[in-house]
């Protein structure tokens, strides 16, 4: 019983992680709409691309625990 509970909790955590990565990606998307500084744009753009990768990783983690 406890095992199932724990597993479900872990699945929930992985889902939350995926959502957080998605939110982070959207936040950097917003930044890129109005940010003018080239240096800042470059860094934010890299981070944003990483977030897309992170979303995939979070999805993979979710599949692993399922």
């Amino acid at each position, binding site marked *: 019983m406890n095992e199932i509970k724990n597993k479900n909790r872990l699945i929930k955590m992985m889902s939350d992680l995926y959502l957080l990565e998605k939110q*982070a990606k959207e936040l950097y998307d917003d930044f890129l709409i109005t940010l003018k500084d080239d240096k800042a744009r470059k860094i934010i753009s890299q981070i944003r691309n990483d977030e897309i990768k992170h979303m995939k990783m979070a999805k993979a983690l979710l599949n692993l625990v399922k």
Partner: protein
Amino acid sequence: MAIKPTGSNKRLSQKTKASAQGRQVDLAVTGSAALKKLTELEIRYRVALENSKQLLYDLNLKTGRIVWSGNISSVTGYSPAEFIDCDLARWEKLIHPDDRKLAAKLLAKAIKTRTKYHIEYRFRRKNGQYAFIEDAGVLVDKQRMVGTMNDVSQLKEKINQLERVNDLMVGRELKMVELKEKIRALTGKAKAASKAKRRSWSDKFKEAVAMEEDVIWQLNDTYRRAVEESTISFFKKRQAKALLSQLTKESVSHRRKINSLINYERNKKQKSAD
């Protein structure tokens, strides 16, 4: 004074005769003057009626026959010859179907209670169009009602125009209130947008740092639970650990990069201030 019997009676009778004849002549003269006066009055009255937009009616309640006078053609569109035979039944037929019942009802009531008849109704003219009529009648005896039918179409039209103008004005005022509300809402939105715009990039980056910290916190917690979780196989645990480590490493790196951006913005601001 005593009257002498001789010759005086004859004189007296002659005098009386002459006086009586004089009175008759006076009466005749007075009668003809009154008639002349009456005729003049009637002419004036007829001219006044014919130049107004009024009809005068004299209704025989027993037979339903109506004697019409006044400006028949102007009010009804019919010539006097065409309208002269219009009786109570035809008059009722010429009233607009929606007003007919009330007109007849009020007429019956006025006759029954011997009160004045007063109503407004639409009356069909010869061309088929309806004129607004104000009808006011009075019972002069048990069998007769005399009254006027007054064409108030122009007055009605003016009232309608005024009402339309009033409606337009009210509509305009409502529109103005609506527009003011829209402008107020837009101003509010613009203020909020400008407030958001005023937020410096340092503040915005701080938001990103907070986001990354949330991710890192979540990763740490997930990592601990994944390691502890007995339902996950050894192989999957290793994979999960690797993925979570990489995620954590990169999120920490993100946090560092954004913190450096905060410093960069701060320096830029400092330089522009100097």
